[in-house]
């Protein structure tokens, strides 16, 4: 059981977290942040195992993880 | 006495100068001279090294080059004795950047070199000017351009006084003319560097570096270390400090440049040092600095024995330059002879100061064969006989 929170204002939509999540829970969504980036969002939150792979790869420290 | 304050009080031309706040007596030097008991016979280069230790400098970084090697050689032996660090760097570029780092950490740091090495240090000097980091940089100059030669030369005047590296900045430039002044101005240099948070340069040459003279050394008590609350020490108990020179924001960059400029203006107002000698009723003033001034002094004495009224102005600070003092003198004394061991550099600053008040004549030689007292005397005599500018 895990949980992540994405700070969409820090997210630049690079997609590195998308590749990092083995559970394939993250995708780049349609919504745009104030910098004009399409940002990452988590689907199926319940499947998150709190491995922090997504956060480890995020260059902009937009992801926090709980386990 | 390097600053002839007594004379300055008497003469007509000099009277105006004495009123100027810019003219400073070198109290430091006068005090040292009072204490004759501690005199030691040493070389000019060594005097700089001893003074650095006396001034509390404990970090010295340099790369060998003739004719300044006595300085690192002395410090390699004696800095460790007082717990200091001597490091022979892989290049002058590395050396000046080590100085930058040590200075950023709040220490009194120093480097010494000669022409080709000073050129390499200019990158670091420009950064330090912008970073507002104090340091003492010694140039025991040699002949240029290029690899040049090791004979004495004053060909680095422009480089020293007009910034030298990139950007709109200055360094304070001190020009000793005796071994005593090599010692005194080194200590003074550290104090000025800390006071204004900027690099200070000593501009001397191999004549002064190799010459031996008795020197009074009481600098230890005279040096004033300032608390550096801007230094990088690790941010224990305070907000982090940053030392930087990058200002991408146009407005901030403009603001920073004006800040530096105002500092230089203040220095121009408060820190000018020069020696004015025998200018009362002089018909001719000779202007020279450093080793050229030393030779010219003999010429002046010879001329005075022949009844020629010639006085002298010797800039001790090359930046700030004694513009005002020269301007004041030029109002009364119409013949000015500038003597340099180069093809004419300081003369440009003299011309700016004099404006159209007086006629400026230049005499100089690149180097190789040093200036002789007799040939300068010849120039003084020639000038005396020139018509049209007598009072």
């Amino acid at each position, binding site marked *: *059981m*895990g*949980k992540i929170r994405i700070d969409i*204002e820090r997210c*630049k*939509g*690079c*997609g*590195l977290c998308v*590749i*990092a999540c083995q559970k394939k829970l993250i995708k780049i969504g349609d919504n745009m942040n104030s910098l004009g*980036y399409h940002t990452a969002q988590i689907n199926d939150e319940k499947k998150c195992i*709190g*491995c*922090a*792979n997504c956060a*480890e*790869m*995020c*260059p*902009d*420290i937009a*992801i*926090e*993880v*709980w*386990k | 006495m390097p600053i002839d304050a007594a004379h300055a009080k008497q003469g007509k031309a000099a009277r105006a100068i004495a009123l100027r706040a810019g003219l400073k007596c070198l109290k430091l030097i006068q005090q040292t001279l009072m204490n004759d008991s501690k005199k030691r016979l040493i070389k000019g280069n060594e005097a700089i090294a001893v003074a650095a230790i006396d001034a509390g400098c404990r*970090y010295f*970084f340099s790369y060998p080059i003739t004719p300044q090697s006595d300085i690192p050689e002395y410090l390699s032996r004696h800095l460790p004795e007082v717990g200091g660090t001597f490091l022979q*760097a*892989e*290049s002058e*570029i*590395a050396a000046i*950047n*080590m*100085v*930058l*780092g*040590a*200075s*950023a*950490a709040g*220490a009194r*740091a120093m480097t010494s070199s000669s022409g080709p090495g000073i050129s390499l240090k200019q*990158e*670091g000097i420009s*950064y330090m000017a912008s*970073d507002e980091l104090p340091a003492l940089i010694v140039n025991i100059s040699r002949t240029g351009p290029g690899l040049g030669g090791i004979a004495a030369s004053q060909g680095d005047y422009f480089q020293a006084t007009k910034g030298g590296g990139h950007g709109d900045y200055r360094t304070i430039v001190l020009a000793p003319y005796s071994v005593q002044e090599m010692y005194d101005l080194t200590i003074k240099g550290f104090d000025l560097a800390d006071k204004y948070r900027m690099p200070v340069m000593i501009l001397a040459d191999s004549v002064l570096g190799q010459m031996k003279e008795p020197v009074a050394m009481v600098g230890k008590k005279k040096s004033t270390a300032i608390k550096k609350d801007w230094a*990088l*020490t*690790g*941010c*224990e*108990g305070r907000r*982090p400090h*940053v*030392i*930087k020179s*990058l200002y991408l924001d146009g407005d901030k960059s403009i603001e920073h440049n004006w800040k530096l400029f105002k500092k230089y203006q203040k220095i121009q107002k408060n820190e000018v040092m020069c020696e004015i000698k025998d200018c009362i009723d002089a018909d001719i003033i000779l202007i020279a600095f450093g080793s050229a001034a030393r030779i010219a002094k003999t010429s002046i004495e010879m001329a005075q024995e022949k009844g020629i009224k010639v006085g002298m102005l010797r800039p001790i600070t090359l930046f700030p330059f004694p513009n005002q003092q020269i301007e004041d003198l030029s109002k009364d004394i119409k013949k000015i002879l500038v003597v340099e061991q180069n093809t004419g550099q300081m003369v440009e600053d003299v011309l700016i100061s004099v404006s159209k008040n007086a006629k400026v004549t230049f005499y100089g030689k690149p180097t190789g064969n040093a200036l002789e007292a007799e040939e300068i005397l010849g120039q003084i005599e020639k000038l005396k006989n020139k018509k049209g500018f007598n009072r």
Partner: protein
Amino acid sequence: MKQVFERPESLKEVSFHFCPGCHHGIIHRIVAEVIDKLEVRTRTIGVSSVGCSVFLYDYFNIDVCEAPHGRAPAVATGVKRVYKDRIVFTFQGDGDLAAIGTSEIIHTANRGENITVIFVNNTVFGMTGGQMAPTTMLGQETTTTPLGRSFIGDGYPIKMSEMLATLEGCSFVARVAVNTPANVRKARKAILKAFEMQVNNMGFSFVEVLSACPTNWKMSPQDALKRIKDELIPYFPLKIFKEKTIPDTL
């Protein structure tokens, strides 16, 4: 649930200016995590270089000195000689360290200065717009090698870690990458080791980090990860090249 991943304290709350997918951000973060872990933030002094990481002082919540291009190891030497008990590190790109600053890095390593160097190798001059670096791969197109780097005329991509490891004065040399979560963790371990070496007065420590510059590689951040795996790692192997276990003493 317990928080298992958060922003390190050694970084300010400021967002990075780096391009999307740039690995500079990851490397900044893991250096900050190491500083946190060792609890040395208030006695660490960073030395920034000239390149895309020039704004180190805007991000790290520590004392920082800017160095001229390539000179960070010399500046760090000056700082460390004054404060032997402080932790001093440089953060340099491959143009900074392997081109203009080659002399400074070699001699600082050779003197065994007790500092840590983080070397970000992205095979290109990032900040100035993607010109060739000494580390640029053969065939790699850059703005100054429009036909791709050729060893004739441009030479071969330089392997700094291998070179430095040959120096007696050097105590720890490793090359890592941050292209996968597993590699990020290994990179953090290596950087932690490098800082620990310094804390224990073991002398000069150096970590080269292979890093993506999607902007100048003209690739998506995802393709950049692939390039690191397929092209860079085979040529720049990930490895601990040197690790002294006893300090040099007189």
